[in-house]
């Protein structure tokens, strides 16, 4: 365990300078915040406007059925989107859209406090030194207070959601295949 963590401290994630195609599921279901995507991303989903702006997952029909969650099963918190901006970018409740922005960890108990990133967690862990108990505690505390969110920079309404998402995923696998 201690070996893994000291390794983790050195493996500080590198900032992703491009809007990598990610799924809502990949961000919401990431249980280890150290492995959360660090940097920019683009996600496709369905916008939900209630108390907060959220993005619901969409179903990808090209994926095998057992890898697929029903549409709207998960949702991701969106930061930086206001009614004003949403109207300006012509996105509204229930419309399918592509969002581009940055992945952050938002303190849902104290929304005004500064947001965290995967890199920030690595640095906080490193500052604790070799104390693996304290590291474990920090991680479990963060799990209780922080949730992944997207600081939205661009929002764009789209048609043909399913087809677009599967094509973008295919391109992602073409580029990152080994």
């Amino acid at each position, binding site marked *: 365990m201690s070996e893994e963590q000291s390794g983790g401290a050195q493996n500080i994630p590198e900032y992703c*300078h*491009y*809007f*990598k*195609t990610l799924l809502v599921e990949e961000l919401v279901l990431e249980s280890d915040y150290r492995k959360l995507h660090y940097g920019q991303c*683009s996600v496709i989903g369905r916008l939900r406007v209630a108390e907060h702006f959220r993005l619901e997952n969409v179903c990808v029909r090209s994926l095998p059925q057992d890898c697929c969650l029903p549409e709207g099963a998960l949702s991701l918190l969106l930061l930086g989107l206001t009614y004003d901006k949403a109207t300006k*970018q*012509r996105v509204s409740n229930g419309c399918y859209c592509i969002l*581009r922005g940055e992945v952050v960890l938002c303190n849902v108990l104290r929304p005004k406090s500064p947001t965290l990133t995967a890199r920030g967690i690595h640095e906080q862990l490193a500052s604790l030194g070799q104390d693996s108990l304290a590291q474990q505690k920090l991680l479990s505390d963060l799990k209780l207070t922080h949730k992944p969110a997207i600081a939205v*920079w*661009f929002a*764009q*309404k*789209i*048609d*043909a959601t399913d*087809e*677009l998402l599967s*094509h*973008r995923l*295919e*391109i*992602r696998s*073409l*580029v*990152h*295949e*080994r």
Partner: protein
Amino acid sequence: MDPNISFFDVEDRVDNFIIRKKQHDIQTTDSAKSGPKIHEDIPLTIAHILRATQDPETPDVFITYNANTNSDPIHFRTCIVYAFVSGYGTHNTAFNKYHIDDSTGFLEASISKGQAKKQIVACLHAEATSLASSERYKPIAQSLIRLLGAATEYIDPGAITRGHSLFLRGRPTLFRGKMGLDAYSFLIDSGSSRKQEIAFADHLLSWHHDYKSTTQVATNK
């Protein structure tokens, strides 16, 4: 061309002429030398361009790979990308610079302001306006004005703003250690329809799939 068709028909069919326009001086170089096939105008992602290297023997040829493993090199001179405009670079007197991103990578593309072409369009526009005052030439002059307006959309990159998506045709360029793209031509794709993006992705995926199968056949022999 049929001499009987009117100028209005030409205006309606202008797309046909653009598509049919022959790009000469390109095909000739491919077969002249033996060696790897050098592709023109192939669909690439920005990740491909970022990992491209210059061919040491022919500097205008770039080599890129599909995956990180250095197999199946693709030799190419020009390429086509489809990307999102995420920001502006520093425009200079001759080129506009845009930060483009296709979700696989990020780079700066420079697009010529097309000043020479713009000047020709402006001259023709002035000519046409003066002709339009005479009753005899009015229809043709107005037709020309409309065509010039349509042509400007493809010449002037000033209309490109953040949040647009673009098709770009061009070639990679290495400047101060950074890979960029010199775009020869562009096409703006805005609006909520993602048909063009999907069509491009289709083309890109099938091109690379076909390319991989041809190279595999060649190495298996």
